[in-house]
């Protein structure tokens, strides 16, 4: 019983260490994005916010949701939403931005 307890405590500690590090990285990125928002850098300021959001989402998807070690079928299903969203953004923004350029 005692060895079992020590064993499960080691497992729990390993899980806390792995996920705690990811959490710390997410908090660091949150601080960074907050600080960058107050620095006037023209278009770079909003872009920094979006880029950091992608990095944070990437950490959650790959490590918390464990897509990094998921089977190909699961990765395909996860990618489908992102791919079609990219099509939606690309086609719509191609229209909107080309109209703005013509003004």
């Amino acid at each position, binding site marked *: 019983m005692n060895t079992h307890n020590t064993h499960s405590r080691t497992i*729990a500690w390993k899980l806390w260490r792995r996920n705690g590090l990811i959490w710390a990285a997410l908090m660091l990125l949150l601080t960074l994005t907050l600080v960058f928002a107050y620095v006037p850098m023209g278009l770079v300021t909003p872009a920094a916010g979006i880029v950091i959001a992608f990095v944070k989402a990437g950490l959650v998807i790959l490590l918390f949701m464990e897509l990094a070690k998921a089977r190909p079928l699961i990765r395909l299903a996860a990618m489908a939403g992102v791919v079609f969203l990219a099509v*939606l953004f690309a086609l719509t923004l191609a229209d909107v931005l080309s109209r703005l350029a013509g003004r």
Partner: protein
Amino acid sequence: MSETTGLLKEPWQYFERQREAGTFGIWVFLASEVLFFGALMLTYTVCRIENVQAFAAAGRETNIWYGTINTAILLTSSLTMAMASQAAAANEGLRRLILWCLAATAALGLAFLVVKGFEYREDIEKHLVPGTHFGLKQPTEQLFFGLYWIVTGVHAVHLTIGIVMVVRLTLLGYLNKFQLDENPEIQVTGLYWHLVDIIWIFLYPLIYLPGRSS
């Protein structure tokens, strides 16, 4: 070490296959959610491109502290959810850890809603609701706040569903109504929870950060 036979449900013959189907199913659902929230974010993007100044001015009116604290709360809830899910998958009899992490996840979700409630009250007091009594000068700033109420409202509904599901898992586990170890329901609920967190990760810079540097 536990058996998985108690977890097997109709119509599956093998537990492995059941788990695979559950994970696949939730990811397909999450992909449809990405398109749903993505379309709202695209609407926001188009409106912002056409009204840069108004969106900067409107963004400044949001309360950055409520927004940042809530982001930290949701990121932490993702940590506890991931812990619960991975501890269950480890199949090492980590019952107390799983239950505490599930309870913490639900509590953090509730904390988010409470903070959001205070924020909504402040927004209403500042007349940030689009309509005849809208409090800001430029009429186009209503575009920002129209989207703000829709997107944060729909997100809060999603989070509420998540809290109900996590509380359900916590209670069933606590009352020994089902087996926690290797239970795929914990992983599937966790995946949904993380998606709700990811949506907020993108909403944070869109809602709270515009116009801070000008």
